[in-house]
């Protein structure tokens, strides 16, 4: 049932290849940044991670609305996977930011709107996953995850707006292709698409895994009666 080649691996392979090329460009080809020296090359991973974490969480918001409307099992599995990948990317974003900030600005953390927004986003969506793990029953899990995802996502712009009132931090302005040197475009774009493809790959894998596990659980009572029941369950769990 779970054997064979799945199409999402192609996207994953493309993502990994692009990430390798983008990282090679960022490390060895592009000229060093004048202000940040060599450590500034983390920029080529940090900025695409920031774009993609927001993109993935936006995807989760859209899937949450869809899941609430049609209540299909596949949507629920996709929603869980998307929120998980969103949390992963946001955590990576914060870790990369501290790695960059420590040697450059001599601090791990600053009270900047974007840092605070990212940190709150991470905690808010991690809370959604906790809620999910505590909810009992399939329908309840679907509805609660979707509702909490929508509520958490709607908060993002308000958090960003309000934390701007805090004293200004050291984070530089937003980076877009139009605001960075043309030398950096290829590496930046490569990594951005790479992380997007890897996110799609991870989400597809996770969704498939959840659906397979569910299928295994649903089959369990019938399978126990059948001759090959234990083998089938073992295959799904493994």
């Amino acid at each position, binding site marked *: 049932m779970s054997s064979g080649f799945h199409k999402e691996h192609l996207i994953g392979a493309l993502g990994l290849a692009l990430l390798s090329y983008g990282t090679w460009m960022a490390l060895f080809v592009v000229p060093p940044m004048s202000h940040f020296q060599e450590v500034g090359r983390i920029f080529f991973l940090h900025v695409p991670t920031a774009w993609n974490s927001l993109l993935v969480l936006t995807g989760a918001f859209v899937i949450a609305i869809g899941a609430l409307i049609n209540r299909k099992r596949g949507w629920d599995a996709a929603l869980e996977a998307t929120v998980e990948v969103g949390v992963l990317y946001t955590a990576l974003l914060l870790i990369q930011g501290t790695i960059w900030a420590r040697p450059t600005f001599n601090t791990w953390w600053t009270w900047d709107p974007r840092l*605070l927004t990212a940190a709150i986003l991470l905690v808010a969506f991690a809370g959604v996953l906790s809620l999910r793990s505590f909810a009992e029953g399939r329908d309840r899990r679907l509805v609660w995850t979707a509702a909490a995802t929508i509520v958490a996502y709607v*908060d993002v712009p308000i958090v960003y707006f309000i934390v701007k009132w805090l004293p200004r931090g050291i984070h530089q302005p937003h980076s877009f292709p139009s605001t960075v040197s043309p030398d950096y475009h290829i590496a930046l774009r490569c990594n951005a698409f790479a992380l997007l493809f890897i996110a799609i790959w991870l989400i597809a894998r996770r969704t498939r895994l959840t659906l397979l596990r569910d299928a295994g659980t649903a089959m369990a009572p019938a399978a126990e009666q059948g001759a090959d029941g234990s083998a089938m369950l073992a295959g799904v769990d493994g």
Partner: protein
Amino acid sequence: MNPVLRQGLAVLSKDMLLDLRGRSRISAVLFFAVMTLLLFSFAAEPDPESMRRHAAGYLWLALLLSSILALGESFRSEVEDEALEGLRLLPVDPRALFYGKALSNTLFLLVLAVVLLPLALGLYAVEVRGSMTHLAGFIVLGSAGLAAPGSLYAAMTSRARGQDVLLPLLLFPLVVPVLIACVKGTGLCFSGDAMGQSSSLLSVVGAFDLVYWSVCGLLFGRVIDE
């Protein structure tokens, strides 16, 4: 009268009656809040100037921490003996249930704030030098901002395992905008608002309230109906 409004008011009056007759929730939460205010003064240096500067923050943190207890309690009574199931069986619009609950929680937090405010003013030796109307605005809109998402989340977490951990975990990150705006705004009301910033902060809390009172009202029906 609009049936949703009438039903919402019925839910509100039911909750208020429970609070007035029982009084255990309000007194327990009140003592907890007062204790929190005292604890802040132990945690910080007993320096009058620093206490005065942070008074607004302490007041709102005490309210936020107490709101978790109040919100959790407000749905515990609905979960016991399947009272919520009973309410759902009645021909009541789920929006009426939500707005009734959220309003009763707002009123509860307002009562708490009205008791805590003079206490904080006395304990931390602060005066209200800015606008009283704006201060009242922050307290009303801030309480409403905690109550609306809090009521939605409490409706979920009260029926989940690990409810005591889940409610603050979900609510605290969400209400960061309310907390920041209310702390800053209340601080300006205490110290005098020379730059006239408090009205724009007030509108941020108002915008948050508008968004969450509508979004949570829409989602509540689905959340309790699954």
